[in-house]
Structure formats: C-alpha cells, structure tokens
C-alpha cells in the first residue's frame, strides 16, 4: 500500500510540474496581436492596449521614418479579416452549398462591430459552431503623431490585421497576425476560485459531520 501511495504522489507531482511548465506558454499564447514591420524605409507598429478580445478593442498605429521620428499627417486605415475564414471542411466538400451562404457573410464589409448580428449568427450553432467572423475596416484618428481607433472583432480565433497607410503619397501596407480571445476569459479565474471555495467548503463540512457521526456499516442490499 505504501508503494501505491508513493506512486500516487509521484504522479500528482508530475502533473503539477507539467502544469507549471506549461503555464507560461499558455498565458502568452492568447490575446496577442500587433507588432512592428519595416516597410519602404518606415517602421509601422500596431499595438493593442490590452489582450485582444472578441468585441471592441482599442489600437494604436505608430509610423516612424528612417530617422526614427514619428510621421504626422498620414491617412491610416486598419482592416482585419479572419485568417482561417472559409477553411474548407474535409468532410463537407460534396455538400457545402448549405454552408456557402454562411461563408458568404465574410465578404460583407461594414458589419464591423455589429455585436447583435454576431450573436444572431452565433445562435446558428450547428452550422458555424460559434459567432461568424466578419471582416472589419476602421479609419484611425491622429493624435500627436499616433493613430488610434477602435476595432471590433466579431469572433475569436486567428485574424490578420492590415494597416494601410498613405505617407507623403507613398502607400505602406503591413500585415499583423492577431489572436482574438473570448471577452469573458477573465471570468475563468473567478469560476475556478468559486469552484475551489465550494469544494473546500464541502470537504470541510464533511470532515466536520464525520467527526460528529458514528460511521455506519455500508448498507448491504444483496438482491
């Protein structure tokens, strides 16, 4: 029995070690987006102020010239489309007509931020398994050589953001991969805390009532 207990603790220890090992990778893996690209002698940066979530997200675009000075007076448009939209289903090649209508939504620009629409689509669960990702396009406003705006991602998943800037008549286009996470992911911690609290209470209550009661023999119901 002692050996069995040692093995149990070893396995638990191994699982905990694995979780700790995995933690940094998973935390960094979601809600990411933006970056910096050098194009045509300019350095274009797209920054999201917070981890990117489904719904509205504040972004900043900064353009630096070859001297590292911020560029003023540019026209900046940021657009985004799902990186994996219309990913064909290996099982549905023969009968995708029914889904085609759904995929066609991907071309409906201007639906950005239509959360109600996204929810309605999300309701069509069986077809899409989640809200439909709709491309968005936003014009950034300039404030002190920094271009900012709010972009709405209609669904979670992998998106590709594109900055389209016109600087002194020169067009600069850069792509940035964006990972959009659920807006409610923060609640996962709260749920976990509630779960741990509830279960700790149950265990405490059981230990309390166990001390007060005399253990009965298990009821034998042979037939």
């Amino acid at each position, binding site marked *: *029995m002692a050996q*069995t207990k040692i*093995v*149990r603790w070893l*396995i*638990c220890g191994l*699982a*905990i070690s*694995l*979780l700790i090992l*995995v933690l940094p*990778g*998973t*935390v960094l*893996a979601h*809600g990411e987006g933006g970056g910096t690209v050098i194009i045509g002698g300019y350095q274009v940066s797209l920054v999201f102020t917070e981890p990117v979530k489904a719904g509205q997200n504040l972004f900043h675009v900064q353009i630096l010239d070859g001297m590292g000075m911020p560029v003023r007076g540019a026209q900046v448009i940021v657009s985004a489309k799902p990186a*994996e939209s219309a990913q064909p*289903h*290996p*099982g*549905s*090649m023969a*009968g995708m*007509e*029914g*889904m085609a209508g759904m995929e066609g939504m991907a071309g409906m620009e201007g639906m950005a931020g239509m959360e109600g629409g996204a929810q309605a689509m999300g*309701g069509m*669960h*069986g*077809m899409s*398994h*989640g809200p439909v990702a709709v491309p968005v396009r936003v014009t950034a406003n300039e404030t002190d050589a920094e271009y900012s705006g709010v972009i709405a991602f209609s669904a979670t*998943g*992998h998106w590709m953001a594109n900055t389209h800037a016109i600087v002194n008549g020169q067009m600069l286009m850069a792509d940035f991969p964006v990972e959009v*996470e*659920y807006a*409610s*992911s923060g*609640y*996962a*911690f709260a*749920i*976990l805390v509630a*779960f741990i609290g*509830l*279960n700790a209470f*149950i*265990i405490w209550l*059981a*230990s309390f*009532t*166990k001390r007060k*009661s005399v*253990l*009965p023999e*298990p*009821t*034998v119901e*042979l*037939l």
Partner: protein
Amino acid sequence: MTTPSSNSAPSGFMEGNLLKNKWIYRFFRSRWYPGIIQWPTLAIFAVIMFDLMLGPTVTHDNFGSAMTWVLWWPVIPIIFLFMGRFWCAICPFATVNDIVQDFVGNHRPVPKFLKKYGVWIIDALFILITWGDHVWGIVDNPVGSGVLLLLLTTGVVASGAFFERRMFCRHLCFLGGLAGNYAQAGMVSLHGTPDICAQCNTASCYKGTEAAPGCPIFEFPKTMQSSANCVLCGDCIKNCPNGSIQLTVRPPTTELWFVHKPKVEAAFLAAVIMGIVFVQNVTMLEVWGSILSWLEGVTGTTSYYVNFTITFAVAIALPVSLLAWASVYAAKYNKASFVDNFTRFGYAIIAFDLAAHIAHNLFHLLAEGKSILYTGVAMFGVDSHDASPALAGMPVIQTLQFGLLGLGFLASLYSVYRIAESNHEGEVVWATFKPYALMMVSFGILNVVLFTLPMSMRM
C-alpha cells in the same frame, strides 16, 4: 491464492472465461490494478482541466478541448462496445470521489429517492447537457467545457464526502447512464459462477475484504445479470474467496435479447439518444436557417433559446413517439401492456444508438484527430496552424460511417426479433416484430439522410 473457476464456464468461441488466463487473472487481482491506469488518467485530466480553464480561449488551439471532444468523447462509445464500462473504473471523477472519501467520507447510505428515480435524473441531466451545449456552446468554448467538468467534479466531491461508495457514478452520472445502456450491447460480461456462488454466504464481493473494497457501484456479482452497472474495477475478483468470478467475451448486443429486469427509464434513454443524434445533425441542414425563421414567425420571438428548445423537443419526441406507436401497435397482437412493450423493445434501439454515436464521432476523431497533437505541441510553443488535422480522407470516413450505421441497423433489427422471440411464440413473434422493424427502418432512413449532409468541425 484462489484460482478462477472452471465450473460452468462455457467453452465455445468467444465465451470462455478470460480469467482462466493466468496473466489476465493476475492483472485483475494485482493491487496495481486499476490504479496503474487510474492515476495517469487523473494526471492527464488535471492537465486538460487546466488548459480548458486557463489555456487558449479559442477551441481550435485548446489542448483540453481537443482531448475532450476529439479524442475522449469519440473513443468512449468504442470502449463501451469492446470493454464494457471499463472507462468508469479509471474515470478521473471516480478517482476524485475515492480520494475525498478516503479523507473525509461520511459513508451515508444512498437516499431512497435516488435509488428510485436516479436513472430518470440521469436522463434529465443528459438531455439538459446536450441542450446546454447547443444554446451555450459548451463544446465550442473551452471555458464552457471546463465549467461542465468542474460541475461534475463538485458532484463527485460531494458524493465522496457524504455518501458511501461511488453514489454519483451509480445514480447521477449522465455518462454512467449512457455507459450502462451501451455496456449492455458490449462484448464483455462479468458475473459469478452460479454453482459456486450458491454455496457462498460471505458476500465478500459486495462487502469487501482486506484485499479490496466492496463493489463501488453497489452490485452483487452473485445475482448480477446485466453489465449495465459493472465497471470492471476488479474488486470482486480480488475479494472472491472462491474464484467464482468469470469474465467472458460475447457477441455484441447479446444481452439486449434477454434483459431480465428491463427498466422503462433505460428504454426511454435509448430513444432519447437517437433523438439527440438527430438534433446534432438537423442543426447542420441547409434548411435549418429557414426552419428557425419559420419558428420565429410561429413563436413570435427571435430568441434562439426558445426556438432551438422547440426543435430539440421535437427531435427527441420523434423517436420516443415512434417507439410508443410501435408499442401500441404491437400490443394489439402480443397482448402485452404498452409499458411492457415500450420497455422491452426500447432496449433494441441501443445497438443503433451506439452505432450512430460512434459514426457521428468518428468524423471528429478522423477528420480532426491530428489537432490533439498540434494543440499538444502548441503548449510548448510549437506552431502548426496550417497543417491539416485530418487522420483520414472523407471517403474513408463516410465508408466507415455508413458501414457502422448498417451494422447498427441490422443489430437493432435482429435484437427486435430476438426480444420478440424470447417473449412470444408463433405468429405473434412476427406481428410484434413488424412495427418495431418499421420504426428501425425509419431511424435508418433518417440517419442515412442526415449523415450524407456536411458536418461542422469541433476544433
């Protein structure tokens, strides 16, 4: 050391006692079994829970989602078919139950209402969880999947803390209800040797000994005539002082032909599962949008909750109604009561349920199987987003799916015949067979139509 019985052990093909093999016997009697499988399973479960709750929030990237819905859920009915309820012996929830029980268990007796209505509660939970998946997106949302598993964990913690043995597994686990049904169509059976058990008054298999605790699922192998509640934990094999326990392999669905104590709630669940397979597919139809629009017009609300619930209710009511109709029709000829017919012949649907369930999930396993690897290596920073997750091409998958549906249909049809034959005689057998055969044909046509339509991926 006791040895397995050689008495009464059938020697025909597939019917010999597996415990006569010394290696299998030693394995089941070993104190390492089932712990050697149970504990690694719990460790993997911990990783899955962690990833579901705190890992990538996109299902496509979540290792927990892949393990749960692409590997575990598709594989579990296959396990039930080939190995009965073996999964329940190594289930992490059962392990949590046992751990909590070891520390603080009050060992109170199971409430009477659970003994009486437990399977109905399981039926209701199964329906609720399936409905919840559609309206809240449990499978589509890692946190949603995590919350479901946390709720189940809380259930087993409470069960282990206050009640004796594995009360939750026997009376409340929705998967246990499903497993109980499927295990009866499965290929493995554990039971005592009647001649030996008749001489035994110790009831060690039920009460437990120093070697192992008593049956965790409250079964008594001496009188056990069904595999519905045997989890193959091996405790009775360790405890039996006479080596009476037999582990035999049998042709699938055999048990369904001669159910000794059929339960109406188990028959109802069998029909409900068929309805759930329908609803899983119906929501993928091209006309699903039109159906929703029409329902919105009828109900006067655009609430997806309301309109889906109506669809869900209709899909579940369809097989239940067909079974009820066949039972009423058959009663005219076999003179059995409606409830008796409904209960006995409801079991015949289990074979088709199992086949349709495996066929449905085979798509997810084979078309998305590599996502388990991709999401697994992604936890260590390896990106493989552009790689195909498919393990097999669609022609292979569809061939397997329709093959399974065909086998399930034939198995159910044959079960109907055998049930009719074992309960009636002469022309009544065929008169009873016909309405249920018509019901099975209806299920078959519906399934074939639905399986030809495209399916959505889980990942």
